[in-house]
């Protein structure tokens, strides 16, 4: 339990740092660390597969892509466009809406009878694999078609057309 509080504190801290740093590259790096703490949370919750996917896909692939784009764009304070008053007002309204929603959700939250998981080992890779290769075998196999289509398309779009004479 103490481990949970340590990790939760760290996630909150790094999430706040993501917002408050001025430099966009630092901000993305803090976001990566935030995601890493989420991975630890997933492992604590016995959800191995989610932890691995979060680690590889979110941290590894998407955030690094973010970082590359940011570096290529070369953003800093000089080129940052001025935010108009309208945008600021809209942001305040949106933030207030989110706050109200969170308050409402907390109000409805039933803390007296905590949810007890029927099967704590449901998130383990072993059980997931059994479901994937028994019940969901057909969609699993068909996802190969999806990946192949995407691959063919990506190569087709990226390939240079030979010049006609």
């Amino acid at each position: 339990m103490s481990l949970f509080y340590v990790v939760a504190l760290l996630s909150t801290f790094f999430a706040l740092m993501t917002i408050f740093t001025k430099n966009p590259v630092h901000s993305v790096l803090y976001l990566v660390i935030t995601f890493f703490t989420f991975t630890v949370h997933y492992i604590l919750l016995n959800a191995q597969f989610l932890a691995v996917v979060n680690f590889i896909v979110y941290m590894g692939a998407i955030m690094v892509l973010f970082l590359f784009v940011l570096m290529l764009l070369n953003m800093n304070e000089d080129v940052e466009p001025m935010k108009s008053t309208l945008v600021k007002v809209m942001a305040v309204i949106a933030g207030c809406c989110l706050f109200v929603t969170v308050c409402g959700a907390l109000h409805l939250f039933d803390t007296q009878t905590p949810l007890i998981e029927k099967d704590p080992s449901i998130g383990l890779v072993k059980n997931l694999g059994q479901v994937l290769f028994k019940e969901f075998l057909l969609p699993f196999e068909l996802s190969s078609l999806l990946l192949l289509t995407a691959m063919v398309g990506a190569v087709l779009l990226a390939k240079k057309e030979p010049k006609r004479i």
Partner: protein
Amino acid sequence: MAAIITLSLLAILVLYLGLYKAQKFLLPVSLIGLATAIGFLVRDWQLQAEPAYSGMILFDHFAIAFAILCIAVTAVLLLLIKGYFDDLSHHLAEYYSLLLFSLTGAILVTAYHNFALLFMGIEIMSVALYILVGIRKKDFASNEAALKYFIMGAFSTGFLLFGITLIYGASGSFDLAAIRDYVALGQLPMMFYGGVLLLIVGLLFKVGAAPFHFWTADVYEGAPILITAYMSTVVKIASFAALLRLFSYCFIPVSEFWTPLFLVISGLTLVIGNLSALVQVSFKRMLAYSSISHAGYLLFALVGSQDVAANSLFMYVTAYAVATVVAFGVLIIVKRTTGSDHFEAFNGLSKKNPLMSLLLTVAMLSLAGIPLTAGFIGKFMMFSSLMSGTHIALLVVAIINAAIGICYYLRVVIAMYFKPVENEQVFQVGINYYLVFIILGVVTLLLGIFPNSLLQLI
């Protein structure tokens, strides 16, 4: 299932043909493969349909009929591909294979019996199309269309997934039969209704019904004509089959919840689609808006009497697909010769090419729903299924819109027959185009005169 395996293998085989530069085998091999797939589906017609692969897929009469229609339309479009993409690129085999992959996805969408498979099918169908829409890399309109289609498609997939998740949260299953049993028990939580709403939004995005139609016109206009024809026929057929299967199989007990929604959406789609089509100057854009308005008529299958819904939907989409393919086929030739897709480009076509104008006229009359064409039978069945219910207001809207439809469909006929010839360009029409036009024209008339063969099919 054999049909899906055949199509997937065919697509990979076609890729290999491209690798070994066997360009002239592409079309025959693809057509033979499609014919084999149809053969497998026809063989399954007599079998007792049961959900296969732990309830993932169900090839009942409904699914087989729509799947065969999808394959047949694709085969016809493949006949038109010859000579269309030749001057565009060297990667002809990849286009064939992407179209075939997309078709495989469409067949999964017609035959799903589990939300996991519905999602997979929609994604396979769409991913291939995102690429095909943007195939003209140097063309600005094509790029814009691909980007719009991709973003809107990804967005609508998000809605669809969220809807599926909420329904799973309420019912505890992805399986359609389990969900139907759950709905029949009653006592549904709010979460379930939220899921149904999000599912409706996601699927209506795919079929392009108002108010989720904004991407349709731009994407249809920017995409290559042949891909537009594919999108407005096969994708629409598959998506409507999915909608009807879902709502008539699972959600009938809660129909008082979603029927008013579909009534409003259907009326809105009709009015917006038809009024926008009326003011277009481009034939291609007019067809895009007309496909939106046809989505409105197709939604009648959901709100009308459920006994005849499957049959009337099948009749309507058959008529619509046949006529649409002819219209886009003629547009390809006109665009290639005159370089324009406006109505003026059709001026005096009847004097230069009487046969083609006659067949285009038949197609236009079928889209407008004039008697003796297939479109009339489709509209008649849709309207009569609505008449048995109590949705008279929608019926009145639909009849007014059908009248508006005649106005803009006949504009091109007027341009062809009563406008003077403006330029002396000679139309180079391949024999494959004539073949397709004549077959489809005969089908339109046959279905219009002897509709009984399709009326009791499913």
